[in-house]
């Protein structure tokens, strides 16, 4: 009742000098708006980055290597390994076992090999890798000129932009690769044929039945079951797409520039570098994989899945550590955006202080009258406090709306720009509910704090002095 009465009187007073008070409220709104706009852009950018990184498979992928690989990504793995020679082979049963782990979407072998590709009678040497069908939604393959593989075993190929440049004999100066639009490269290449020469591993005859490659027309060389042959073969491939991005960016030096459907790559049974090492230990019927990539249902589960795979006796690597520093970067970015926004709000608070102090000067007489007829210091103080609070609350609400609008406009503008650059639209901006609430509460509190001094000053006003002025 009392609070209601006080607020009612405060609002009434605010309406009375509406011009000055609305200017102050606008001042607060602008402060809140810049705070909201900056933070929402920060949060939006963070979400965008996370989304893109998630799409790229960096966040939800665990790379599994055999301990026999000896080239673990983590030094810890080396230490924890009792003996590399005794550890498990990363072969098909192991892959299936990993795939059955909880929260694992798929586990696919990493097939990559260096080989020769000839295009229009010119030979090029490069790294080729198999791409699972699930990579269809990967950033590197969405919206590319051409299309993704039509099926998991189609004799089709997607080229990385740099390889496309090489095929066309265009070599832009280093650092200017990005200047050539990928669409321009796609025109002469899409639908063309590449011939890939590769070394096929052919197992001994007794296991040939189950392992004979689908495409192979070559004869197998009969040996004991502890032997295999290596045969040089050719495969015609149809260029279906050119990718601008590098889906393989995690791999550094082992990056591939030509991508095949994974199933096709597996079926070709190309001789893998690990095959040679395996041969020292005897031959297995099934080829082993140097690495298996595991896709996890949710980035949150990555750590648990990694632990589970380690228990199976393999080395793992994920980019969790890298994302940690990325999150830290965004926290710092948010902090700075927040600081700039708060500076704007601080300026707005000075506006509140100014308005309220002016109000005291203007309303000296009124305060004097109120005190003369019985208003206590506390009442006058609360009244000015309520006025400051009301302006803050209103300014906060208007400011959030304004900040939302500003963020929206920036987003729209950026998307128009992106459209001109022939890039897909993105949402750079996000206003979560907590930000709405926090901004309003923040504006309210800042206003109350700004009202402290003027309210105290009004309360201490000497009524005799105040009434003396005519």
């Amino acid at each position, binding site marked *: *009742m*009392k609070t209601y*009465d006080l607020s009612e*009187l405060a609002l*009434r*007073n605010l309406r*009375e000098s509406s011009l000055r008070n609305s200017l102050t409220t606008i001042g607060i709104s602008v402060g809140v708006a810049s705070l909201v706009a900056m933070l929402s852009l920060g949060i939006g950018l963070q979400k965008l980055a996370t989304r893109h990184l998630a799409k790229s498979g960096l966040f939800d992928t665990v790379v599994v290597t055999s301990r026999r690989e000896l080239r673990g990504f983590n030094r810890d793995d080396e230490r924890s390994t009792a003996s590399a020679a005794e550890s498990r082979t990363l072969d098909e049963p192991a892959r299936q076992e990993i795939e059955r782990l909880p929260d694992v979407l798929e586990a696919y072998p990493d097939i990559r090999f260096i080989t020769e590709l000839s295009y229009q009678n010119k030979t090029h040497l490069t790294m080729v890798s198999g791409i699972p069908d699930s990579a269809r939604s990967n950033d590197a393959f969405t919206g590319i000129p051409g299309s993704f593989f039509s099926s998991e075993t189609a004799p089709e190929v997607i080229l990385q932009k740099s390889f496309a440049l090489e095929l066309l004999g265009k070599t832009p100066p280093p650092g200017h690769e990005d200047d050539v639009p990928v669409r321009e490269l796609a025109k002469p290449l899409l639908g063309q044929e590449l011939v890939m020469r590769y070394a096929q591993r052919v197992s001994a005859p007794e296991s040939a039945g189950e392992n004979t490659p689908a495409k192979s027309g070559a004869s197998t060389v009969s040996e004991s079951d502890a032997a295999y042959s290596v045969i040089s073969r050719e495969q015609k491939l149809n260029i279906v797409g050119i990718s601008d991005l590098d889906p393989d960016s995690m791999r550094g030096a082992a990056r591939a520039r030509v991508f095949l459907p994974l199933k096709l790559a597996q079926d070709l049974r190309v001789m893998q570098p690990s095959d040679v090492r395996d041969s020292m230990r005897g031959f297995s019927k099934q080829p082993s994989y140097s690495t298996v990539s595991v896709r996890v249902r949710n980035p949150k589960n990555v750590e648990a899945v990694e632990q589970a795979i380690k228990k199976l006796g393999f080395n793992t690597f994920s980019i969790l550590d890298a994302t940690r520093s990325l999150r830290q970067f965004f926290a710092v970015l948010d902090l700075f955006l927040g600081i700039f926004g708060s500076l704007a709000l601080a300026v707005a608070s000075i506006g509140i202080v100014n308005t309220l102090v002016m109000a005291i000067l203007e309303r000296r*007489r*009124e305060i*004097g*009258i*109120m*005190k*003369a*007829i*019985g*208003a*206590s*210091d*506390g*009442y006058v103080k609360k009244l000015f406090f309520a006025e400051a609070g009301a302006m803050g609350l209103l300014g906060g609400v208007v400011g959030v709306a304004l900040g939302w609008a500003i963020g929206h406009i920036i987003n729209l503008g950026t998307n128009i720009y992106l459209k001109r650059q022939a890039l897909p639209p993105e949402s750079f901006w996000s206003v979560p509910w907590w930000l709405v609430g926090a901004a309003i509460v923040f504006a309210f509190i800042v206003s109350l704090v700004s009202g402290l001094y003027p309210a105290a000053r009004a309360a201490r006003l000497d*009524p*005799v002095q105040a*009434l003396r002025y*005519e």
Partner: protein
Amino acid sequence: MTINPDQSNSPNGAPAIRIVDLCRHYQMGEALIRAVDGVSLQIQPGEFVALLGSSGSGKSSLLNLIAGLDRPTSGAVIVEGRDLAHLSREELAKHRLRTVGMVFQSFNLVSRMTLAENVELPLRFAEVDRGQRQSLTRQALERVGLGARMTHRPSELSGGEQQRAALARALINHPRLLLADEPTGNLDSHTGTEIMNFIREFNQSLGMTIVMVTHERALAERYARRMILLADGKLVDDRPNNDRPHEDQPNPAAVTASRQRERR
């Protein structure tokens, strides 16, 4: 020169106002202004006292001290048994809210508020319920003949109407003491008489104690029962007004009723 206060009309024993050796000095630049300088007097409940004196005589300062708007430099102002010099700021505000009602020469209505809102203010300060506030405000304004002007702003009214509204506001919390500082100073003689008649009525029918500051001797002689003359902050004369018609004597029953109302 101190003159013993007139106690002849005291209906009960305790005085409404007792002032003992009261001083209020201001420092103004180099000079020390002795606005009130060693005044002692007593005012009994139901009295109608005029404080007379030329401008700068200290009469308004004295009134402000009784109102609790100002604090004495030394001495005591005891109103209804409480020494205002020892009250906290909060208690002084309560004193102004409950014990005294004030009217001023310049009316002192809040210009941005309507008459009803002005009259309602002391009820807000006293935290009276909204519904009750509205009916009390209406009654108070009707009593001074402004029932039809409730939503008007002070600037839309004549001086006499404004002063009537100020009177309604002064009485809204039923104080027993009405302090009037030149209440007719800004009014023509006709409206001045109208206001003085209201004040006299409050004195007689409600038994309110009236202390009125004026520099018009004629006005004081016509309405007040006792006249106190101040000069240079000192009390120079204090005597009953014998010219006053006998029927204007306060009604002792009204004074008692006023006291009982307060105790409630």
